[in-house]
């Protein structure tokens, strides 16, 4: 069994054990969940150690038969992009589970199992090289996430869960038709074979075919990212999801969209990529500004961060479709950064909510005196999210703007306003929550972070600072893979076959 399979199977085994012992004591469930997620993380580190950074190809391939009569295989391989996203997933999972120890009282077994299954499916999405399996896992992630939002979420959880499910399903089904169409043209679901056929010119799709296929894939991924104007499920899902769900949603699930664009939509339909790029840049700039402005107006701090996600993911798509190696590589780095910063923000909001059972900014004020540790961490994480130099957000966002400036000056300038607005809404929220007079009784008695919560936050803070100060390795890891995608797009669309 290779490292990829092990990384996928480990959480599944954990989920299976939990399914076999639905009445297990909560303490055992906690221990099992933590142990399994740490083992998965270890397994992904093994995957990293086996990975050849200089090689831009998909590596460490593993495959097994699945449905031979339609040519679908359980085929996996990773490149730099999928590897960092897998690492992000496995890194966040133990933190999510530990952070949920107190906040989720009801049916913790199911909660843990749902997360482990979800994790396995997401790792599969990032690692698979079979189009059908990609679709299957991409769509399957809906089920556990639907349950996580729907069962353990807040008051409006049902509507939010259904909205999340249907939006994503709509996009996914269109992608399925696209995948089937590609299959009808090529006779295979093997991504590598199809990509090679495109690159070598054996598979030439007409401009119209490419446009439709790209659009089909784009809808699926745009919903997931989410791009303006199909982002409307995200604020509800984020607000109603339990803390762990929000962290996973922001940290990992949204990345399935940008990952899909980079892995599938761009290399497979290069002409359409070039044709769509200006439009997507336009849409993502709108998303950056729209998300930021709406975030500015939120009174619920979780909703605020949810809209900031729309804005930040706009940056990622902007960088991706700037189609130059600086911006696109930085876009992948920014996927990781957003996962860490926004994940950390959602964790802090969750901790605050557990103490106060409110997320309304107006209910707080002056908390910095009462909860200095939380305030400090909040400030660091906000700074990271608003791209302060020296923290991780900067090393992602700045090159995106830099690279975009080279290809599309107007978009870069407009998007830069998004960065300014980010500073405004994040700092303003921080100020209203933690500064000012400590007036109400509830604020005066809010306890500070516990040791467990600090332990959960610590790895995130360490990474936020480490990537900010020393981003080289991360860029080295994703750079070659991104360059390869861009080279393929340029080669085919530029007519060099």
């Amino acid at each position, binding site marked *: 069994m290779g490292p990829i399979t092990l990384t996928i199977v480990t959480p599944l085994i954990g989920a299976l054990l939990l399914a076999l012992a*639905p009445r297990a004591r909560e303490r055992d469930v906690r221990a099992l969940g933590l142990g399994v997620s740490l083992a998965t993380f270890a397994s992904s580190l093994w995957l990293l150690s086996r990975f050849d950074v200089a090689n831009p190809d998909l590596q460490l391939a593993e495959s097994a*038969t*699945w*449905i*031979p*009569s*339609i040519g679908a295989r359980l085929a996996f391989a990773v490149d730099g992009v999928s590897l960092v996203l897998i690492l992000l997933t496995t890194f966040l999972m133990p933190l999510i589970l530990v952070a949920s120890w107190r906040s989720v009282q009801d049916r913790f077994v199911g909660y843990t199992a749902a997360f482990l299954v979800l994790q396995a499916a997401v790792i599969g999405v990032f690692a698979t090289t079979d189009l*059908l399996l990609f*679709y*299957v*896992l991409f*769509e*399957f992630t*809906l*089920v556990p996430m*639907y*349950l996580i939002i*729907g*069962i353990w979420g807040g008051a409006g*959880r*049902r509507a939010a*869960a*259904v909205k999340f*499910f*249907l939006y994503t*399903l*709509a996009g996914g*089904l*269109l992608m*399925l*038709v696209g995948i*089937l*169409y590609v*299959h*009808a043209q090529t006779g295979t679901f093997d991504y590598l074979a199809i990509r090679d056929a495109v690159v070598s010119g054996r598979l030439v799709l007409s401009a119209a075919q490419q446009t439709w296929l790209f659009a089909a894939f784009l809808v699926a991924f745009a919903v997931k990212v989410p791009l303006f104007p199909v982002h409307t499920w995200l604020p509800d899902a984020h607000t109603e999801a339990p803390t762990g769900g929000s962290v996973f949603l922001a940290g990992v699930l949204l990345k399935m969209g940008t990952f899909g664009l980079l892995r599938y939509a761009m290399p497979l339909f290069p002409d359409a990529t070039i044709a769509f790029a200006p439009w997507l840049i336009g849409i993502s700039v709108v998303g950056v500004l729209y998300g930021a402005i709406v975030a500015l107006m939120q009174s619920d701090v979780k909703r605020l961060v949810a809209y900031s996600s729309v804005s930040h993911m706009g940056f990622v798509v902007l960088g991706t479709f700037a189609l130059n190696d600086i911006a696109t590589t930085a876009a992948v780095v920014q996927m990781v950064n957003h996962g860490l910063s926004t994940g950390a923000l959602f964790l802090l909001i969750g901790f605050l909510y557990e103490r106060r059972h409110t997320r309304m900014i107006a209910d707080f004020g002056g908390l910095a005196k009462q909860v200095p540790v939380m305030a400090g961490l909040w400030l660091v994480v906000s700074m990271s999210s608003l791209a302060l130099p020296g923290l991780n957000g900067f090393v992602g966002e700045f090159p995106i703007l830099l690279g975009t400036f080279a290809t599309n000056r107007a978009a870069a300038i407009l998007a830069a306003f998004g960065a300014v607005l980010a500073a405004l809404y994040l700092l303003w929220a921080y100020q209203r929550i933690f500064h000012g007079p400590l007036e109400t009784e509830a604020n005066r008695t809010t306890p500070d972070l516990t040791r467990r919560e600090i332990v959960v936050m610590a790895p995130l803070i360490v990474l936020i600072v480490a990537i900010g100060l020393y981003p080289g390795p991360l860029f080295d890891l994703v750079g070659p893979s991104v360059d390869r995608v861009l080279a393929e797009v340029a080669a085919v669309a530029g007519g060099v076959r």
Partner: protein
Amino acid sequence: MNPLLDVSFAAIAPELVLTGAALVLLLVAITRGRPQLVMLPVGLATIALGAWVAIGGDLVPGVVLALLGVAAPVLPIVLPGRATLVQAWGAGLALGAALVLTLWQVGPVLGADGGSLVASASFAGSLASDGLSLFTRLTVYLSALLVVPLGYAYLQERRINRAEVESLILLAAVGMAVLGGANDLVTAFVALEVLSFALYVLASLARRDRRSQEAGLKYFVTGAVASAVLLYGLALLYVATGTLSIPAIGASITSVLVPRGVAMAGLVLVTVGVAFKVALVPFHFWTPDVYQGSPTNVTAFMAAATKAAAFALLLRLYLVAFPGLQAYWVPVLAVLAAATMLYGAFAALSQHDVKRILAYSSITHAGYATIGVLTLTRAGLSATLLYLLTYAVGTIAAFGVVIAVERRRRGEVTLTNLRGLGRTSPLLAGIMALALLSLAGLPLTAGFIGKLEVFRAGVDAGLTWLVLIGVLSSLVAASFYLRIAGIMFLDDAPEAVAVAVDGDGDGDGDDVEAMEAAEARMPLLSAGLSSAVAVAAALIVVLGLQPQLLIELAGHAGVLLR
């Protein structure tokens, strides 16, 4: 085995067993508590027959017959004084035997790698033995085998488990299987009537339940009209072509000697008749009432097996008899399929009765299955057959859960009755959710495989627009499946149940009362129901995770006798 008569017992072995079993079970019922009067002689005769067949060289059917012969007298001994249980076990064993015999018929082909089924005819061309007939048998017998245990305790409790129930199910199954293989117009019509008559009675089984009466009557009237229209159409086809044989009609229908007007009139009437039977919009209107009013196990049987059989007729007529006229019927049927997919999904949105919702869902699924027919390809045929099987499994599991909830309530099951089921009986609710996910076609369930194959065949054949309508309909359908799942898992249980479950433990009167109220609302399982539902759920998962064998089988089954 007189060659002059061209009787091939092997070709109809499963049907012979079932017909025999149906007759024996009816005879047992009239012995009034002395089943051995029938079982013993029949058992001995069957053992002798089995031995003779085995010696004749057909080991599998011989052994199957011998085992059935042994089972016949043993059943009343191990189940003394439980006449209805003997009936159910008898029917179950016969269906199991039929399934084994069907696999025996398929077996030689399965073993050979890559080979397709070899189509052949028997009974002077009246009965086809090809992929369509074998796969339809498989679906029908599997459905019946699941439905018999599913409904036993339910019928028992509603006091409608009369002696003829199992025999009627068996006879209906025989009609369906023969319909799958019917290779001439008369055989097809007779088979259709056999299954329809059995189902008319089954639908109105609950004599004291007005809704069941209504369902039976409605089914009978609309079914009779549909049969009449269909018969008229078949007659016109005969007039036009001068032959009853479906392949011969297919060969001659485009000939200049065939009066085009008459043939077209026949096509139109047949289309209407068949659309009635498979419930394509706008000929679907009987479905919700009939599905809602019939006893739930009968509904499950109708949804799963009747659909497969009616589609077998549709497939054979359109792919064997009418390919020559495809320029006329493909657009019409495509529009019907599109309308069916959309209407079924949207109409289900506003329903509250779970059986009605599942009825509309069955309408929607008929639309998807039609996509495979419209491709006019072998892959499309295989896809439709596969789709019908995956749909059958999913829908039986769903109706099974409805039965469990319905039994305590003795009435209709509305969405509110499912509230909090995820908390009170998580396993049952989990199976329901699984079945709904499968019906919605979500990945890693059997339903996804069916949908994938149908969509794939559609896209391959250039029917992308129809597939996109299918996508839209799946999306709408997913929203109501999701609504049911949401009600089970995301809503809290109704007050009384919540009190009883949480139990303040002070042991006062209200608590006991609440307990009783809660008890009455708890779903009730019986061994038969749980095992049938569990098997269906297991099939959903297994076929969803590892569908290779089934896809291969369906691929081999894409063979029609022409």
